[in-house]
Structures are given as C-alpha cells and as structure tokens.
C-alpha cells in the first residue's frame, strides 16, 4: 500500500517537473526569439537604409536643378539618422564600429547643411561635388560589405544572439561571420577618413586651447598644497595624487581624499597647477541660508580663483544646494564660453563644487569686440511677435565652434521666455533658445 502511494507520488512529481521544465524552456525560447527578431530587424533595416542612401547620393550627382537637390539632400539626412538609430540597436558596442558611425554622421551633417542652404545663391562647390562623389563610392563599398554579411546571415541562418554571446563572453571572436563582416566594413573606412577631412566633410573635434596657461610642472607635494587651499586642514597623508594618462586633452594632476564621510576631489593642470575642477561630497543638513546669501558665498569662492570681472548670470536651487554660473565680462560684453560654475551647500554656505575648465580652455583674445551694427538695427532682426525685455552684448560659440560677437536679447511671448542671439556683424539669428528651467513634480 505504502509502496504504491510512493510510486504514484513520484510519478506525479516526475511528470509535473517535466511539464514545468518544458514550459520554462518554451518561454525562454520565446523570449530569446523576440530579442533575436529585434536584432534581425535592426540589421536588415540597416542594410536597406545604406542601400537607399547609396542610390540617393548617386542621384544627387546627376541632378542639375536646385529645386530637386534640396529635398533630395533632406531625404539623405533623414536616412542617415535612421541608419544610425539602427546601428544603435545592434550589439556592436564592444566591436570597433566607430568609423562607420562617424561616416553616417558626416554624410548626415553635410546633407543637412547643404539642404538648408540657399543653393541658388550658393551652389555646390567643385570641392563639395568631389566630396559627394567620394561619399558615393564609400557608401557603395559599405553597401556591398553589408549585403555580403546579409547574404551569409540569411543563407546560414546566423543568429545575432550568438554574436552577443560571443562578444559578451571572453570567447575569441575570430570565427564569427557577422563580427568579421562588420570588421571588414570598418576596415574599409580607414582610408576614407582622410579624404573626408580634406573635403571638409568630417566634423572637427571640439576646440580647447590651454596653450596660454604657463607655469612649471607641479610636484605631488605642490598639488597637495594647492588642494589644501580649497579643502582646508586635511592631513597630507590622507591625499591620493594621480596623474592623467595619454588620452587626456590637457595633462592634469588629481588630488583626492576621503575622511569622516567627506569626499574631496580636485583636478588641476600639470603645468602651473591651475584649479580645473573641485568636488566635495558630504551629507548636507537642512537648508539654513537662502539662495541669495549662497550666491555671495559663491562669489567669494570665485574670487579665490583670482579671476577678474566675473559676473553671476545664472542661479538655481536644487533641494539643499545652489548652483551658480559666472561668466567673464569685459567692456560690457559677456563671454559665455569663459564660464565658471560653483556649487554651494545651503546648510552652511560651504563650497561643494567648482568647475573652471571651461574658463581656462577658452582664451578670449581672438574676438572682434566692435559690433558692426547698432542695437536698434539688431532689434529689428528679432521676430516682431516677441517682446524684448532685456539685452546685452555677448560672445558665444557659433555652430562651427568659433567665438562670435552677438546681441543677446531676452524676450517674452505669453508665458514663455526666449533668449535670442543676433550676430553683431551680419544680423544673422545665431541661436534661439526657449528658457525652460523648471518642471512640475509628477509624484506630488
């Protein structure tokens, strides 16, 4: 009797486990399949986008009428943006695929800038046509490589999940067809980058110039002394001093410490020990002082940098801290690229952070300081539907990263505030911003 009960119980358990296992397996397969399908979709869309891209670039080369060219270039711009989005959905992050992404971005950038240009006034230059021909060739090569990969994927039923696994685990990735295919695409981009640079189609990296900062190379001991000026009385032995590596834009020395729940971090230039960045992290108690009092504290910290003519242009309160932005002002011109940010605790007004690298990386000398038009003339360039509330002269960086003298207008329309920069030389609208700094709390 007892034996029978045991046997039947065991049988039920085994069958139950089997059924459970099978169901789990089925569910797992379904989930994997879904992930696989979304990879497949991104991949096939990428190949088809590159295909269309190649055709469209080819067509622009044959076009003569300006009326046709602008919409065509706009279309190219749209397709590159879709292709980049497809790349972003593929598990390629651990694979060197940068150059191809850069290539897509460059085409998009070029197409956009040309599409919005008045081609009747400024037709394509010979250099640009040569550049387009080059792009046509490059996109053709990429298309062929991708088609090859696609062919193998379809023929051999290759799965992207395997690529992900191969990339994520330490496995040697040498024998994976998909990975190899993409590596070939990337390799074929090597030679093209140079030509893109020459035709002015590749975006230039952000300009930072530290050459005007002089000074001797500082020692570890000096670095600690500079840090102590900001952190107060911290024992020398508590500091860790490290040097930046080869990839840094400018060589820096970092001094940091951690003591009694307080964490201090400071970056300074290796030459001359200019303070680039300070961060202090600690528990902040209830706010005792207002934003305005904190602003005057912030000012005293900026004074400590020994920078002249710094003016507070922006202040914001985030819970128990205040963040303030100062810009360099000379002859009533605001130099927005030369900014310093300060973070102050509202419990005791102590310094929590300082960021001056922006200030030091932009020497202000090479800017035209005389506006080519009067303020009234510039005002006429502003949309007449806006009410001008306030204005300044200001230097900002234009889209190419060049410092440009502008009239800055703070304007309102209804409840919105807009900031408009009008180029002081030619009256172009350089930049229009909607000033939105706060958002409703959704969980209140």
């Amino acid at each position: 009797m007892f034996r029978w009960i045991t046997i039947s119980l065991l049988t039920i358990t085994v069958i139950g486990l089997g059924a459970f296992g099978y169901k789990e397996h089925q569910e797992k397969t379904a989930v994997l399949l879904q992930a696989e399908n979304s990879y497949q979709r991104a991949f096939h869309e990428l190949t088809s986008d590159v295909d269309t891209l190649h055709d469209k670039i080819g067509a622009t080369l044959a076009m003569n009428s300006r009326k046709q060219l602008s919409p065509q270039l706009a279309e190219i711009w749209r397709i590159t943006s879709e292709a980049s989005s497809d790349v972003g959905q593929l598990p390629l992050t651990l694979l060197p695929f940068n150059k191809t992404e850069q290539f897509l971005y460059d085409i998009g950038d070029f197409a956009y800038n040309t599409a919005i240009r008045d081609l009747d006034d400024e037709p394509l230059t010979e250099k640009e046509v040569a550049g387009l021909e080059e792009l046509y060739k490059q996109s053709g090569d990429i298309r062929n490589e991708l088609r090859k990969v696609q062919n193998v994927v379809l023929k051999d039923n290759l799965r992207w999940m395997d690529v992900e696994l191969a990339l994520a685990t330490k496995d040697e990735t040498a024998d994976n067809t998909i990975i190899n295919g993409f590596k070939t695409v990337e390799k074929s981009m090597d030679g093209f980058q140079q030509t893109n640079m020459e035709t002015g189609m590749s975006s230039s990296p952000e300009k930072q110039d530290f050459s005007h900062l002089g000074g001797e190379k500082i020692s570890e001991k000096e670095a600690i002394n500079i840090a102590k000026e900001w952190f107060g009385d911290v024992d020398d032995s508590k500091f860790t001093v490290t040097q930046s590596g080869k990839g840094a834009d400018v060589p820096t020395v970092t001094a940091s410490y951690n003591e009694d729940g307080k964490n201090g971090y400071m970056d300074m230039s290796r030459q001359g020990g200019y303070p680039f960045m300070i961060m202090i992290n600690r528990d902040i108690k209830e706010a005792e002082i207002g934003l305005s009092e904190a602003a005057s504290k912030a000012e005293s910290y900026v004074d400590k940098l020994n920078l002249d003519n710094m003016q507070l242009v922006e202040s914001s309160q985030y819970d128990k801290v205040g963040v303030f932005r100062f810009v360099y002002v000379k002859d009533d011109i605001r130099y927005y690229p030369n900014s310093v940010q300060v973070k102050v605790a509202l419990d005791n007004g102590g310094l929590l952070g300082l960021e001056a690298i922006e200030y030091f990386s932009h020497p202000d000398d090479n800017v035209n300081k005389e506006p080519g038009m009067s303020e009234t003339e510039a005002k006429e360039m502003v949309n007449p539907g806006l009410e001008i509330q306030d204005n300044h002269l200001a230097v900002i960086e234009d889209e190419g990263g060049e410092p440009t003298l502008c009239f800055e207008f703070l304007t309102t329309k209804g409840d919105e505030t807009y900031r408009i920069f009008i180029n002081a030389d030619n009256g172009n609208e350089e930049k229009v911003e909607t000033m939105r700094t706060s958002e409703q709390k959704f969980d209140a």
Partner: protein
Amino acid sequence: MVLRKITMASLLFALLILPVPNMEDQGTAHAFSDQVIQHGAVGQDVIELQARLKHLGFYSKKVDGVFGWSTYWAVRNFQYEFGMEIDGLVGQQVKNKLVKASKGYEQALPKNEGSNDQSAPSEPTAVNVPGGYSQNDIKLMANAVYGEARGEPYEGQVAVAAVILNRLESATFPNSISGVIFEPLAFTAVADGQIWLTPNDKAEEAVLDAINGWDPSGNATYYFNPNTATSSWIWSRPQIKRIGKHIFCK
C-alpha cells in the same frame, strides 16, 4: 469578548478622528522670511511672492514655488510700476511694497480655497531641472549610474554620468539618453538588470552635477573595469585617467 469589540471599535474611531485637528492648522497664512529672493530660488517664500504678484495681476502662471523666468519678469514689472530699481531681486524694500500693495490678499485667501486658480500650495509643486533634462531623464540616468558604479567614490559616479552625456554629444553614439543607456552591450548594468535597482540620493546628485557641467572623466566616452574587461579592443583606446576601479578613455 464584548469588551474587546468595544475597545477595537473605539480604537478605530480614535484613529479616524485623530488627523482632523491637524488639518485645520495648515490654513494659516505664512509671511516672507528675511532672505532676499532671487531667480532660481525654490520654496515657501517664492510661493508667497508668486501668490501676491498673481493677486495684483503681475503674474499669470501657476503658483508653483519655483522662481523662474515668468516670476522674474513679474518682479521686474512690479519694480517698474512702483518706481523701484529694476533688478529682479526681491529684498526687504520690495517685500514691504508688495505686502502693502496686496493688502486684500490675506482676506481673499480663505474664500478662494475651493478654486484651484488662486489658492497657493503649501509646498513647491515644481523643481528646477538643469539644461532641458526632465526629472525622468535624471531618474533614468541615476538608475544607470547606481547600477554601474554604486561602489565607486562620488567623483567616479559623476564621471560615469558624464560619460553618458559625452556619448550624447558624440557622433558615434545615439542621440537620446535612453538610446545611449539601452544600446545593446553598452552598459553591463543594463545587460544584467542591475539598472532596475532603486538608486540612492548620491547617484541622483552625481547625475545633477554631471548635467550642470562637472566632468571628472575629462571628456571620456568609454570606461572599463580593468579586472573584468572582456574586450581587448577597449585597451587600445587612449586612456585619460583612472577613478576608483574604472579607467576612463576616449
């Protein structure tokens, strides 16, 4: 048994009526503190300021307790109308003028309790958000930072947040915060689900600092933990610096 029932019932009853007396206290009108109120401030003072300016017709938006641009222009217009120096700062002089001018404001308060339009909230209903990022963007980034670098020193967390922002700027990465974070295999915390842990305040503060411009990574777009890094390619990138366990590179 009966006794127990009675006790239970009275306890429940007591619980029900207890909160009632508290509710009546909240109606009291608060006055200004002695701090100067300026652009960017958040709090009771700003609510008071906005409510009074609204009562006088200088301010037309919702009373939300955040001194934004609309409040700034309202203050300047008020200063202009009353012949004061136009600087957008609310000091004692402005407060006195404002309280005097909006005398009817206190009397008007209780009557309008029902209408959403005039009644002032007791706490700010909005927050400052930096650089056009929404609270939810910040939350998502804080999740990623916490999942990726919760054991790291504070600057290491700010650096991870800065890398996300640097990728946003870069041509070779997606153009949205969610695109960068959810790019397949980009972050291990996304792949293994650690991104869905609840982040602490420190992670959120680190994200805010990064958005406000602090970048201890030195413009890095990649970082890796040399002890667990699986890709040999990552070692070929130019290294900027090491913070905690992570090496940051271009």
